[in-house]
């Protein structure tokens, strides 16, 4: 024990930085290989209905309450936070526009994804981690099933399809929440709320939000399943896998959000240059 401590003490900060960089590169490489294998199995054939339906139910139906509540309150919070500034500029009737654009392009997809990373991603990592430590994943292989095809592909499909749908639900409920607070508490006319809410948002904004959700869904599934498959031993290992699934998914969502926002902005500028008459 003492010799180990001595060795660790001797490591310079450069060593530690090097170790961190190596661990990071190794982790990214492993995650990429895992995603590649998953895509290979996805293309090999769809999983059976008896496997995919329960996963769709778990990811979609059972996430609905949390997404409804989150979306509703995000919309109302946006109304509360924006009202003061809009009143100062006598633009309070345009509150609907800022609420809708914030929800559709940014907050709806991101917050829905974050909520689902917490609810679905952690649960997936914990479930797969438990299966790993109790040798159920080995048992699948022993019984002739490929664990990636049987366990990961259905979860990936469910997240890819349902997280964008749940983001749309969050957007709609958020708009309703914003409308309720704006009209019933802040006294804004309902007509103006919906007029600006609908007219300010373009098809491009909606598509941007949906594309972001697709990427977020894929990231949550891949990161969470990868954590579950690489879970450490015992209850502590499972707990750590669940926490890591949420933290890494959250980081992935924010990083992807940044790059996708930049990409959508660039695309928008290109489209405007190519077709200046069109409304994007």
């Amino acid at each position: 024990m003492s010799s180990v401590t001595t060795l660790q003490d001797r490591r310079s900060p450069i060593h530690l930085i090097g170790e961190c960089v190596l661990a990071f590169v190794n982790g990214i490489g492993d995650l990429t290989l895992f995603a590649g294998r998953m895509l290979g199995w996805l293309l090999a054939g769809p999983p059976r209905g008896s496997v995919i339906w329960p996963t769709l139910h778990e990811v979609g139906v059972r996430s609905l309450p949390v997404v409804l509540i989150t979306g509703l309150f995000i919309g109302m919070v946006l109304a509360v936070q924006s009202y003061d500034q809009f009143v100062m500029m006598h633009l309070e009737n345009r509150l609907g526009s800022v609420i809708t654009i914030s929800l559709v392009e940014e907050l709806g997809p991101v917050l829905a994804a974050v909520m689902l990373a917490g609810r679905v991603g952690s649960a997936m990592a914990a479930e797969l981690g438990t299966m790993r430590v109790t040798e159920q994943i080995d048992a699948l292989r022993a019984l002739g099933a490929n664990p990636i095809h049987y366990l990961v592909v259905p979860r990936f499909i469910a997240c890819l399809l349902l997280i964008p749908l749940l983001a749309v639900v969050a957007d709609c409920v958020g708009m309703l929440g914003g409308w309720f607070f704006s009209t019933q508490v802040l006294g804004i006319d309902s007509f103006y709320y919906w007029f600006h809410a609908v007219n300010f948002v373009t098809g491009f904004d909606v598509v941007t939000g949906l594309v972001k959700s697709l990427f977020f869904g894929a990231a949550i599934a891949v990161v969470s399943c990868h954590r579950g498959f690489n879970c450490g031993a015992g209850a502590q290992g499972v707990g750590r896998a669940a926490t890591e699934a949420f933290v890494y998914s959250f980081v992935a969502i924010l990083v992807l959000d940044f790059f996708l926002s930049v990409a959508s902005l660039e695309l928008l500028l290109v489209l405007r240059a190519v077709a200046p008459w069109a409304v994007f």
Partner: protein
Amino acid sequence: MPQQTHTSRTPEAPILALRGVSRSFGSQQVLRDITFDVRRGETLAVIGESGCGKSVTLKLMMGLLNPSAGDVLWNGNPISNRTERELHRDRLKIGFLFQGAALFDSMDVYENVAFGLRQNKRLPEAEIESIVVEHLRESGLSPSIARKMPSELSGGMRKRGGLTRALALSPEVMLYDEPTTGLDPVMSDVINELILRTRDRRAVTGIVVTHDMTTLRKVPDRIVMLYPQSRLQPNEPQIVYEGSPAEIFDAEDSRVRQFVRGEAGERIEELFAA
């Protein structure tokens, strides 16, 4: 105690063999240059202290782990030469009873037993049902157990469920990872009997990893004892005993005698000195 009538089986080429197999996890070497055969029809016990690599040996034999060096042979052919598809196909000839049974939590016992059949054999549902019911009956599990979830079962029932699931695919070889660990003596004897019946009725070759001396006396034809690699000298072989169950209790190697008699010996002083 039933008569052991199995020693008269004809010896053939080994159905499973390890040739110079080593396996490390990170910097820790668990197995070093292991070589032994498993003959068709025999039941071999692999014993040794915790951490000596017994379960790893089973997983290497199943192809669930790859050796760091050496080869695992199935019917004389190295599994490292097989494609993923061939490995998948041939792995179905080997059943595995996991230490904790590893029944799938999300399925009841019936679905667990039917899983391998549904996954690999295109059988009508009625035939699957008849196979499942027959195997459950052979393992002494009543039809009412079939619809229970694994969490509702006792340890012994879970082990029998795991054994039934493995046997439903009619394997040629069964690997048992500590089949009686955590069970009361009566249930341990039930599991031992099931292992013997599996061998006698279905002509299944067995490899049993165990710490249980009752199992060791009753079940195997032959025993291989591994010693923890960390306690060996650099060139010392890791297999410290390979022979019959009758002779192991009087083995020349004091480490073997000490293990089967359950004597700590100098280990006590080592532990307290540390």
